[in-house]
């Protein structure tokens, strides 16, 4: 290899300081993504980040790869087109929890079902940070937010379970605290053919954290460490204990054929002929 591409070949360092609040983990996820791209030595012109709207949706402004910044909730739909237009590209959709699972929920479940070869990296901070801390589709039941002052009356999505049942090929959960694990999962997801999801449980010291987690920004980050366990450990907990923890780790890793693989397997002009791995 001629040139070693360090993370700064992907990270637009002249755009610093980053726009996120003190103690928000978005910058940590951004660092992990750029480190993963560097580990894989992917040329920046073969990578497209597709972002939605929200705090995490601003991440494209710090990337030196190709980038698409579109409308709220649609990063995966735009990313689907980007991939269809040039299947050689690595397409990474960066979405927050509201972006991916409320307004963008339909695109999310169908991208997973279709098994589009796109990587979704979801920064889940359990609320809409940019608009002032309203509850989102992942906010845990009874949590306080600016639109649930007495406690939210809806249970939150399990993003990874949803991804699995919809058909994603690779699903992993980590936290903004677990930086080494995060990079490992993102690297694996980027290499995976088919739809891959990395959910990163994140802090929001300004809004969700302030209302639901005691202590300073470091305490909120420590909270991520203290309330997550590996799948092996989780499975050994009793039901009551399980209630207090979230599972981290690689939760799905399978080899369903992706959309383009199946589609290209069909013979043009011959609707009768079966083809592609999807037919087996």
């Amino acid at each position: 290899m001629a040139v070693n591409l360090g993370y700064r070949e992907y990270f637009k360092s002249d755009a610093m300081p980053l726009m996120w609040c003190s103690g928000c983990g978005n910058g940590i996820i951004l660092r992990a993504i750029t480190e993963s791209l560097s580990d894989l030595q992917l040329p920046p012109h073969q990578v497209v980040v597709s972002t939605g709207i929200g705090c995490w949706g601003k991440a494209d402004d710090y990337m030196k790869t190709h980038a698409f910044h579109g409308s709220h909730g649609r990063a995966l739909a735009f990313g689907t087109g980007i991939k269809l237009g040039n299947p050689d590209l690595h397409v990474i959709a960066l979405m927050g929890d509201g972006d991916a699972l409320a307004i963008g929920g339909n695109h999310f479940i169908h991208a997973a079902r279709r098994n589009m070869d796109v990587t979704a990296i979801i920064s889940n901070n359990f609320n809409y940070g940019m608009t002032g801390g309203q509850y989102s589709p992942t906010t845990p039941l009874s949590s306080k937010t600016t639109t649930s002052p007495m406690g939210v009356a809806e249970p939150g999505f399990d993003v990874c379970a949803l991804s699995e049942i919809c058909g994603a090929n690779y699903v992993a959960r980590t936290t903004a605290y677990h930086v080494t694990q995060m990079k490992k999962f993102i690297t694996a997801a980027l290499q995976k053919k088919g739809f891959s999801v990395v959910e990163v449980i994140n802090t929001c010291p300004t809004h969700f954290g302030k209302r639901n987690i005691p202590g300073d920004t470091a305490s909120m980050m420590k909270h991520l460490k203290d309330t997550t366990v590996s799948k092996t450990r989780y499975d050994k907990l009793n039901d009551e204990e399980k209630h207090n923890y979230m599972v981290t780790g690689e939760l799905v890793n399978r080899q369903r054929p992706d959309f383009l693989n199946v589609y290209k397997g069909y013979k043009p002009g011959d609707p009768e002929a079966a083809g592609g791995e999807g037919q087996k």
Partner: protein
Amino acid sequence: MSRPEGIQLMEGNHACAWGAIDAGARIFAGYPITPSSEIAEVCARELPAYGGIYIQMEDEIGSIAAVIGASLSGKKSFTATSGPGFSLMQENLGVGIYQEVPCVIVNIQRVGPATGLATKPAQADIMQARWGTHGDHSIIALAPATVEEMYYLTIRAFNLSERFRIPVILLGDQVIGQLYENIKLPDPESLEIVERKKPVVTPEEFYPYQPDENGVPPMAAYGDRHIVHASSTCHDLTGFSNFKAQTNRALLTRLKDKIYNYTDEITDVEHFGPDDAEVTLISFGASSRVCKYVVGEAEKEGIRVNLLRLISIWPFPDQVVQEALGKTGAVVVAEMNQGQLTGEVNRVNVTNTPVHLASGIDGELISPDIIMTGIREAVK
């Protein structure tokens, strides 16, 4: 199936799909909706043989998003829908306009609002096409009136979108979309096909939103070494977010000027009937076919009537319409809505020529009687 040879009896929607394929479209992303679905069906059947892809998205929001994404990856892309689906596309249509993404949106209009007289014809999306997405913006819309025009205007729609880097709307209607007429598809080699201008500078010197002398930035594709940052947020020529007042002003001004400065080039009209007339009909699409019949009927009653048919609707051909208003005794606008085009005609009516509306909102092709009634009123 393969490309139809010789003279064929063909549906308007089929002709549209073949126009797109011959214009070089290789990605169709859509969602089924009557009366446009035949366009999707032809694309699903035919695109793979051209190395293209048909994808059926989860809704029209996703459809136009995929179209925009695929175009940014360098493929000519399009979608087809009807009123309700067109409404769902509006936010992302704005994204396409703002990011300057060439693509084509076919809207085979039907009666609304809401589900309305589902699948019956209307021409009531004139203003949705113009102002459906929020914010100041320009748009190009073309209105075919024959099956042959469904083919050729689809090609023109792609050509204009590539030339001006803007989504172009083909504003058809149920009558034209599902009409069968004879057509002979031309040799594709004989067609004039416009491709987007690529950057001539090196990747290091490249700014994705540096406009050329026409105000249109040369376009690199995702995957090129020229890095593209396409943003729905206010951006400078780098494509990155920039919230300065002068950046916003410059961008909005350029997006307007790059179209409005070329209105003459985009404008396409047909003059039908005698030069000098007591009454001029102004119409487009399916309604204009009835107008042509009515020109003859009026003559039988001793009224000299001609027709100005708008083939391009947006940008509105102010000057051509103004000239027509100045040369006639009265104008009757024949349209299948409650006066959307009439409002535009009145806007440019500096000669205070009497303008009447012949409005067909019966969920069927506008009747000659409605237009004749308008003409009789006009000459009263």
